[in-house]
C-alpha cells in the first residue's frame, strides 16, 4: 500500500484497487469505501496505517462470522450433503473431510451421489481409499436420489458417525438440476429425519461476482448451512466471501489450500483478512 504520509485521493484509489482485485465485488467495495470515507471525515484515521486498520475492521464486521466449525455430535449419523457448481472442488473436499474426521476418531461413509459425470464415482472411490473409508455407489447413469437413499440407509445400519454425500456439479441456472438437488435432500430427510444436518456449498476462490449469485440460488433451493472455499493456494483472494457473509450470513467452515488429502483448514477470519492485504 501507499507510502504516502497522509490520507489522500491516491491512497483511497489504491485501497479501492486492493478490494476490487481481491474480488470483493463492486457492491461491497463501494459500501466499504463509503464507510471508510465517513470514518475519515469523523477523524478516526490519522494516517495510512490507521486507515488500513479501519478497513480491516469494516471487513471483519461484514464477514460477521466467527470461525464456525461443524458440531458432529448433534446427530448420529451426521449427514453432510455437498453441493456447488461444476469443477469447484466438491469431490476433493469430501476426500479431505473424510480424512480429517477419521483422524478425529470418527467413522465415516461416503455416498457417490454424482452419477452423471464420467468417472465421478471412480474419483470419489480413490479418495475413499486414501482416507480409509467406504464408498456407497451405483452404476453410472443411475438416479442420484437412489444413491442418496442407499447411503443414508447404510449409514444408519452401520451406525457411522458421519455420512458425506457427493453430488454432481451443476450451474444454479439449470432449474431442473436444482430440482434434482431438492429431491435428493427430501430423500435424505425421509430416510434419516433431520438429514442433511449440513448442506455444504463449495465455492472456488477464483470465481468473481457470480459467487454471490451461486450462493443465493443454492441457499434458496436447498437451505445451504455452510460454505467451503477452495483453491486459496493460488493467487485469487476469495473476497466474495465477504459479500456472501454480509448478505447471507453463511458460516464458512473450511478452506482448501491444495490438492492433497491434508490440504484443508478450518476457516480463520483473521488470517483471511490479513491475507487480503498481502
Amino acid at each position: 500500500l501507499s507510502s504516502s504520509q497522509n490520507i489522500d485521493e491516491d491512497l483511497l484509489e489504491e485501497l479501492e484497487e486492493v478490494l476490487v482485485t481481491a474480488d470483493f465485488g463492486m457492491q461491497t467495495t463501494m459500501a466499504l469505501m463509503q464507510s471508510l470515507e465517513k470514518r475519515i471525515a469523523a477523524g478516526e484515521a490519522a494516517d495510512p496505517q490507521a486507515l488500513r486498520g479501519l478497513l480491516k475492521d469494516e471487513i471483519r464486521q461484514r464477514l460477521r462470522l466467527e470461525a464456525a466449525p461443524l458440531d458432529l455430535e448433534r446427530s448420529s449419523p451426521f449427514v453432510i450433503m455437498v453441493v456447488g457448481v461444476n469443477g469447484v472442488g466438491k469431490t476433493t473436499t469430501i476426500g479431505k473431510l473424510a480424512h480429517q474426521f477419521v483422524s478425529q476418531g470418527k467413522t465415516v461413509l461416503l455416498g457417490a451421489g454424482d452419477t452423471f459425470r464420467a468417472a465421478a464415482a471412480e474419483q470419489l472411490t480413490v479418495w475413499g481409499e486414501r482416507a480409509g473409508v467406504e464408498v456407497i455407489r451405483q452404476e453410472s447413469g443411475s438416479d442420484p436420489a437412489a444413491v442418496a437413499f442407499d447411503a443414508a440407509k447404510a449409514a444408519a445400519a452401520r451406525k457411522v458417525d458421519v455420512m458425506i454425500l457427493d453430488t454432481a456439479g451443476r450451474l444454479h441456472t439449470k432449474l431442473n438440476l436444482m430440482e434434482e438437488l431438492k429431491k435428493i435432500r427430501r430423500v435424505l430427510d425421509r430416510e434419516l429425519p433431520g438429514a442433511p444436518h449440513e448442506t455444504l456449498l463449495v465455492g472456488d476462490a477464483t470465481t468473481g461476482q457470480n459467487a454471490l449469485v451461486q450462493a443465493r440460488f443454492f441457499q434458496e433451493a436447498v437451505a445451504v448451512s455452510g460454505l467451503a472455499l477452495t483453491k486459496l493456494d493460488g493467487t485469487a483472494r476469495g473476497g466474495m466471501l465477504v459479500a456472501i457473509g454480509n448478505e447471507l450470513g453463511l458460516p464458512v467452515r473450511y478452506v482448501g489450500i491444495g490438492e492433497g488429502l491434508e490440504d484443508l483448514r478450518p476457516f480463520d477470519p483473521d488470517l483471511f483478512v490479513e491475507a487480503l492485504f498481502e
Partner: protein
Amino acid sequence: NLSEKLDSVFKKLRGHGVLSEDNIKQTMREVRLALLEADVNFRVVKEFVATVRERAVGKEVLKSLNPAQQVIKVVRDELGRLMGEGEENSLDLAARPPVAIMLCGLQGAGKTTSCAKLALQLRRQKRNPLLVPADIYRPAAIDQLKTLGKQLDIAVFDSQPDRDPVLLCEEAHRYAELNGYDTLILDTAGRLHIDEQLMDELVRIKASLQPREILLVADAMTGQDAVNVAESFNAQLEISGVVLTKLDGDARGGAALSIRAVTGKPIKLVGMGEKLDALEVFHPDRMAQRILG
C-alpha cells in the same frame, strides 16, 4: 442495464451537438462500473475507459442516435474489437500429421471435458483424432477421458498413472503415427500458474511435441485473477488461443476481456454445457454484449 443508465445521464442532451466533458465524465463512470461488475480486471478497465473516453470526446452526436446510444456504440465497437471481431480464430491444424493440440489451465476449468468435445468436433470435420490423457495426478482423470472417449467411440491412448506425462505424450505421438491418427488432443492436469514444477512440465511437453495449438482453458466465471493466470500461462508457454468454458451459466464473463487484453490471443472456442456437443465457435460481438450487461 448500462443502456438505461447512460440514457438517464443524457436525458437532457438530445439533439445538442457535441458530447461535453461533463457528460463524458459521468458516462465513463457508468461504463467503468458496468465492466467492473462484469468481473473485468481493474487495470484492464482503466485502460479501456481511457481509450473509449478519447474516442467519445468531441464526437458529433448523430441525428439518428441519441447520445447514450452514441456512447454505447463507441463502447461496444471498442469492446468487440478488443474481443477479436474480424480476427481469425479457427484452429490451426495446418501441419504434417499427427498435429498436436495441448489443453492447459487451472484446476477444474473444464479441460478434460473440452478435450472430448473437441475430439467430437474434429471427427465431424472428418479428422481422425486420438485423445491423450496426460493427467497422472487427479484421481481417475485417465478413467474420465477414457470413459468420454468410449461414449463418443473416439480412440483414447492407453495412458497409465505411473508414467511421466511427457513420456506419455511422446508415446502417444508415436502410436498416432503408426496407427494413422492425424490429430493428438493432449489433456493435461489442472495446475496453478505459480507451480514452477508443473508449469515446467508443460514447457517440456511443448518442447517435445511442438503442439500446433496450445489452448488455455478458462472458466467464464473467473474473477480478477484471470489476468494473473493468463499472463503467466502465456509468458511461459506462448499460448495460441483460449477456450472459455461454462458460458451456459449467468456469469457476465468479464474474464474474457481481461484475458484478451493481457495476452492478445484469440478466444477460439466456448463451452456451452456439460454435453459433449456443447462446444461452439466464439462470437466477439455476443461476448461484448454479454459483458456490458
